[in-house]
């Protein structure tokens, strides 16, 4: 199948989408369909995709599903997070109201199709305005299928106490899903959003997600993203964040699953004094590929950014990190630091890491560093000299390397869950 034919096949089901009551959605969809017609699937000849070969994706065909057999409560229980009063569940990309629970009181989170007046205003102002779907084929495809997404609005001056959990469950082979999320934090508000991608099956499926986060002056958003898809899954996601004056964005993204995953995060500081902390962890093995591309755009003065990205790569897996920091002219007193640390567990594991700093202001503080290495020999000997078996010692050190990122997740139950997962995964990774 050639590349154009491939996109056409993905779009085949699009005309069957019912019209949305929201005019903005219909307009966006129509424009996005046009853009998909113009754009092509990137190849390794594109600079932004040179390490991530999507040809395994284009050899398979995926279609959105209209109905799914809903998983029962028992299957869901292990994905439940105690702290999350609001849980919005999507099964194979389709909203499952019966499995979802929206906390009473202010409707912080709703689906796009049930948007109330407050949400409609946010949608008109922000949806499709932060992510660049005109130039990114996967953002365009997602937008073409806009229907069931989530809108989260933190009202002015309100700290939303409980995290909002968006749970995306894959249950069907060959399914394409297009999760969409809009987060709007009004001035002085605070909210924590967890995007969680899980699977109940091991066949191939395709997730193409878009998240837009607009943070107004002095507001704060904590964003946790956990990609624990099935081992044959393809996961491509775009997230765009816009930061107002004195606002703050803190995110932790963890990639554990998928055959090929790509997470692209773009943060734009649109006003002075914005702060972002972006942490990431990929733990992969076998023949997995996990690609993280981030871009932090310091467009205004007095911005702060902190980024820590780590990869633990076993088997013949391949991790990619590209971290761009842009400091525009006039963005004086920008304070930015970035580190990329990578642990290779086998001789066949591979990592490509590329810090990319573009600085056009003169009064700035920008630190960055990248390391690629194996487990520390001195630490291994220290543990061995205390009677600890080589395998246990390696597992402990690998776990500790990743736990530094997981420890930054502000939701205790999720942090504990991922620590357990990491421990199990590092143990499995070290099996020959």
């Amino acid at each position, binding site marked *: 199948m050639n590349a154009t034919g491939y996109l056409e096949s993905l779009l085949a089901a699009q005309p069957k989408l019912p019209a949305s009551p929201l005019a903005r959605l219909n307009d966006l969809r129509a424009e996005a369909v046009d853009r998909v017609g113009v754009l092509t699937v990137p190849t390794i000849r594109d600079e932004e995709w040179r390490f991530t070969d999507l040809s395994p994706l284009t050899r398979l065909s995926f279609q959105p599903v209209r109905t799914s057999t809903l998983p029962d409560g028992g299957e869901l229980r292990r994905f439940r997070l105690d702290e999350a009063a609001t849980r919005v569940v999507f099964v194979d990309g389709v909203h499952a109201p019966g499995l979802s629970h929206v906390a009473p009181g202010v409707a912080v989170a709703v689906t796009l199709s049930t948007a109330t007046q407050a949400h409609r205003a946010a949608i008109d102002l922000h949806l499709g305005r932060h992510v660049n779907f005109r130039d990114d084929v996967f953002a365009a495809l997602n937008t073409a299928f806009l229907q069931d997404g989530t809108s989260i609005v933190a009202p002015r001056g309100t700290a939303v106490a409980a995290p909002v959990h968006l749970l995306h469950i894959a249950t069907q082979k060959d399914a394409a899903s297009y999760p969409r999320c809009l987060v709007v934090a009004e001035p002085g508000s605070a909210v924590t959003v967890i995007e969680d991608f899980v699977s109940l099956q091991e066949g191939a499926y395709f997730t193409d997600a878009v998240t837009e986060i607009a943070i107004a002056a002095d507001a704060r958003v904590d964003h946790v993203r956990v990609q624990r898809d099935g081992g044959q899954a393809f996961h491509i996601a775009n997230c765009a964040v816009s930061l107002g004056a004195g606002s703050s964005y803190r995110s932790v993204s963890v990639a554990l699953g998928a055959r090929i995953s790509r997470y692209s995060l773009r943060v734009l500081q649109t006003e002075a004094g914005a702060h972002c902390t972006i942490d990431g962890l990929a733990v992969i093995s076998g023949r997995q590929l996990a690609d993280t591309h981030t871009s932090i755009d310091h467009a205004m003065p007095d911005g702060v950014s902190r980024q820590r990205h780590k990869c633990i790569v076993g088997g013949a897996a391949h991790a990619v990190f590209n971290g761009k920091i842009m400091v525009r002219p006039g963005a004086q007193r920008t304070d930015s630091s970035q580190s990329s640390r990578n642990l290779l567990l086998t001789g066949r594991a591979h990592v490509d890491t590329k810090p990319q700093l573009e600085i056009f202001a003169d009064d700035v503080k920008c630190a960055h560093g990248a390391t690629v290495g194996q487990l520390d020999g*001195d630490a291994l000997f220290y543990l*061995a000299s205390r009677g600890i078996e080589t395998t246990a010692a390696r597992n402990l050190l690998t776990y500790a390397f990743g736990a530094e990122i997981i420890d930054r997740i502000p939701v205790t139950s999720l942090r504990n869950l991922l620590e357990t997962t990491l421990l199990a995964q590092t143990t499995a990774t070290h099996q020959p």
Partner: protein
Amino acid sequence: MIRQDSRTLLEVRGLRATVNGTEILKGIDFTVRLGEVHAIMGPNGSGKSTFAKVLAGHPAYVVTGGEVIYDGRNLLDRKPEERARAGIFLAFQYPVEIPGVANSQFLRLAYNSVQGERGKDELDPLEFDDFVREKMKLLDMNPGFLARSVNEGFSGGEKKRNEVLQMALLEPRLAFLDETDSGLDIDALRVVAGGINQLSTMDNAMVLVTHYQRLLNYIVPDYVHVMDSGRIIKTGGRELALELESRGYDWVGAEHRAAESAAMGTAR
């Protein structure tokens, strides 16, 4: 304590070892019996620390000659973790920092690995917590060190206390303490030395590797050995340490070289 009827715990004969192709140990003979306390002294770079690391099984060192019999069996064909479980302990000169691993987690894993092997019950986190807090009192250590990452951000003295704490937990039969006195102020030295003395019994033995005799004011050795250029060139009682303190090391080397050339002259 020297008792001639004590069993030999360690017998080193003609031990040679290299690191990155450079010979550091050039034929060491060294015997330890149960109940004894030995001090190995010598100038920097004489091979003292290397000797301790080779016996603990550090993979960077290659043994090129000689043999080491520990408790009646060959030691050199055993992995470091097997040596530890057999009762060998090395208190590191520079304990390794391990970010992300809680000290309590590390200490418990070490305890269960070594003591479990000896038939003691493995301890769960709660049981271990009680147990380790008792041991920490011995060393006047703040329990706050349990929750921190292993050695991370510890001062030099705190790291050394943490080493001796591990010794107290693992109850080794043969402990090498590599420059355990360095980085300790006088009060800390007294506490740490007191802890070590309490751990010394007739059923184990200790080897103190030290540059200065300061520690030996608190832990009295039965034997003092002087190491130079990868060999033990003089052995004496505790009074040798005091002599070294006042006269330095040079005279021992000169005496040794004179004796060697005399021996060679005789041989000719």
